């Protein structure tokens, strides 16, 4: 039965938002189903997988289609996913993709958004846009020195012996700004970031999560 619900109809989502009668939902389910537009995962097995994984995160009483489209999953739950568990940016990722007011929970659509940006089918522009937002720790629209410092600390891990000394950090950040800051204002904005990323041959292949 879970296989049917991997295909979503816009009307279905619409109806659910206005709390339709349960049996119309059954009628819809019984009719022919086809693919929605907004999922950039390239084929239906990936969509089915996404929905299945999302449902696994929900508490047992709301593991059906209507609830799965309404309920939000808290960030702690999302962080238990094996794909995100080892990622140093996992909290930032959840924050960036969350559309809740307190940015602490993800609905199914946010979940799909997340995996579609990280999938193979997303364009490099989309990936770099979201990467910028993930790296922007203070959410001010530019990467300043503090953001870069947090970034380096995330990348070097949590251990004491793997962190860089402050002089090394300073040197590193200066070098980075020297390379990427075209207009020399001390911060990296979105277009400069996208310019750097477009030159990187590895970005698209490493900025990828496969369910």
């Amino acid at each position: 039965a879970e296989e049917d619900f991997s295909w979503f109809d816009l009307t279905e989502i619409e109806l659910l938002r206005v709390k339709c009668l349960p049996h119309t939902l059954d009628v819809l389910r019984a009719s022919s189903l086809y693919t929605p537009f907004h999922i950039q995962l390239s084929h239906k097995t990936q969509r089915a997988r996404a929905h299945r994984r999302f449902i696994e995160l929900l508490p047992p009483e709301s593991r059906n289609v209507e609830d799965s489209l309404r309920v939000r999953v808290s960030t702690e739950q999302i962080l238990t996913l094996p794909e995100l568990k080892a990622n140093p940016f996992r909290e930032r990722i959840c924050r960036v993709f969350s559309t809740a007011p307190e940015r602490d929970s993800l609905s199914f659509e946010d979940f799909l958004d997340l995996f579609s940006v990280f999938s193979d089918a997303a364009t490099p522009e989309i990936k770099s846009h979201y990467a910028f937002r993930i790296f922007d720790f203070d959410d001010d629209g530019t990467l300043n020195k503090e953001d870069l410092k947090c970034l380096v600390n995330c990348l070097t891990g949590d251990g004491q012996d793997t962190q860089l000394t402050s002089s090394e950090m300073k040197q590193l950040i200066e070098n980075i700004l020297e390379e990427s800051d075209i207009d020399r204002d001390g911060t990296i904005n979105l277009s400069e970031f996208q310019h750097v990323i477009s030159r990187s041959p590895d970005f698209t292949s490493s900025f990828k999560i496969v369910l």
Partner: protein
Amino acid sequence: RRSHESKREEKEGGNTEIKARIPQRKKDIRRKRREVFGEDEWSKAEKSCNGKRKRDWKTSHKEQKEAKNREKQIQRKKEKQLKKHSSSPSISNSSDNEFIAEEEMAHIMEQVEEKKKVIATIRNKPWPMMKKLEVLREAQAFVEKFEGALGKGKGKKFYAYKMMMNKKWIKFKRDFDNFKTQCIPWEMKIKEIESHFGSSVASYFIFLRWMYGVNLVLFGLIFGLVIIPEILMGMPYGSIPRKTVPRAEEEKAMDFSVLWDFEGYIKYSALFYGYYNNQRTIGWLKYRLPMAYFMVGVSVFGYSLMVVIRSMASNAQENTGEGNGDNFTFSFKMFTSWDYLIGNTETADNKYASITTSFKESIVDEQESNKEENIHLTRFLRVLANFLIICCLCGSGYLIYFVVKRSQEFSKMQNVSWYERNEVEIVMSLLGMFCPPLFETIAALENYHPRIGLKWQLGRIFALFLGNLYTFLLALMDDVHLKLSNEEAIKNITHWTLFNYYNASMWNESVTRPPLHPADVPRGSCWETTVGIEFVRLTVSDILVTFITILLGDFLRACFVRFMNYCWCWDLEAGFPSYSEFDISGNVLGLIFNQGMIWMGSFYAPGLVGINVLRLLTSMYFQCWAVMSSNVPHERVFKASKSNNFYMGLLLLVLFLSLLPVAYTIMSLPPSFDCGPFSGKNRMYDVIQETIENDFPAFVSKIFGYIANPGLIIPAILLMALAIYYLNSVSKGLARANTQLRKKIQALREAEKINKSNKASAAMKSLQDTNNFKNTNQLQATEEGKLCWNSPLTPLQF
């Protein structure tokens, strides 16, 4: 949305009717919608998720901007449209209305196109899902409403039919694409490896899979166009001398040891060159087998060349501007070094460590780039190391030559032992196994940066393999020339044997004498088959050595470390020998050279590609298992994709180098007189001449005569050289323009900063002036001044 819902309310009658009608009506709407967005969305989807990643960054960025602008226009137009809709009831979505004016129709069509473009580009927008859903819903409702109204008069139905067929075709393409994506083999296996070992180890397996695909196509070509026609339509085994095992070898022809050496029945089968008959056409289809053999041989190289270059070009498109002075080492390390596919904490820890090390290294690099201690000692050591390595290379080359010569003497003797029969292959494999570590130890003298050291190492291994292969070929060439010089003698023997047979006094005149049994006819030594057999044996021994190395070197070592650790004095897992890491470069080079051997040998042994396909298939499963069970993730996690083009370039070089011997033998050596599809001709390429003269109309051979004229070919080559020079200078000019633009941006920003600081100083001045007069004015000036200061680096602080 408003219009859509209002429409729905119009049509919905009482509650009871809804339940009966909704499913059907919704089906219609859904079908229309599906077809509408299906068309545009998936045409974009095909381009973007085809796995080939041919994305033009600039144009799609432009498209994004255009689409955004257009979207605003659309919103405005939509509002106008809604007003129109409410005021002009004649525009409805029923297709019976024929009074739509020309102008309005063009206007509507334009809007519909815009909406469709929005639908198509919506997946490129970095908006949250809800926003995308809303925009899409509006766009779709609009398109659906007015699409049916676009055709007018009698052409309407045809237009609607055309649109429907178009949509069906798009849907079919989309489904086929989905199916194709599902057909890609081994996706889950590779994903598992990626999450454990990172993208660099997985890139080896992706390369292996790509090679498998290429070999499968080559196998299809050879099998379908050469082997199958000969088996089905050619003369069967035993009918002519070249297809029969000679009488002298017959008793031992079925022995396993003979078969293992690819003699006996295997030698006289469709796997090798010698089996093929030189009949011009075979079977009722009049299939021209010699021509097909030649063309397939050429197209194997042509297809491989095309596929390698296409792959290199698509890789190169992703690294735009590698060489025009943009050095982003630190930025790349910061922004792109984390591999998001890593799902394993152990790998993640390794990755943290390697990132830290690489940061520290590059910082130190940058600081010490001008420091060089004791240049002379370093230079002397490097020269010494290179000298030692060149000695090793020459030594291995000579060893191979010597061993091949010895094996030729052995083949003349009887009762050779197993070692003597396989000496050549054993020696080559041993050299391939032990020389690279030797090179690495010698390279410790050189004291290079690890990345540079790795490049030297790879270059040296490449030289080793190449030297070995070419020495092997040279030794083989001697053998070939020897065989060719014996041919005259054997021709005479054959002629006299047949003559004597038919003129012997035993036979009566009246009885038709049976022809001499093919097994008894004296045979020439078929040099092409010998060459083919040598390559097949080399490939098979290479396969065996690889598999045995993995089994012993990785698996048994892992078993030993795991199980003996309990009762050993020191910690086997942390110290020596510990678990092995997956040797990416060694494996990739092995794959490349194996492919080079296949390319060289496939002309003389058509069955070789089939053997390779089997080998790649088993290799995939075997190595996946070996990696997951016996290897640990690398301590220094390398990024593979940058070297992807390096390996492709190596493959291209190997392709050219393996083309050379084959081209040489085709052009300059005469084929054997009694075996193969070209027997009896002066040169192998004469088959083309023959086909053009006999099978094509007369003017075609004239045309070919003109084209093959050197007076035409040399100017064509000059023209191509000029084109390369021109393109080179164009790209240099573009790089220069790039740097100038960058300087311009910097200058603009400087000017802005100066402006700001001027404004600020002016504000401060006016502040000081008004300070003496009013307090309220002072406050206003402060506000103005503050507005100018949004940059953290403004020199003036307030």
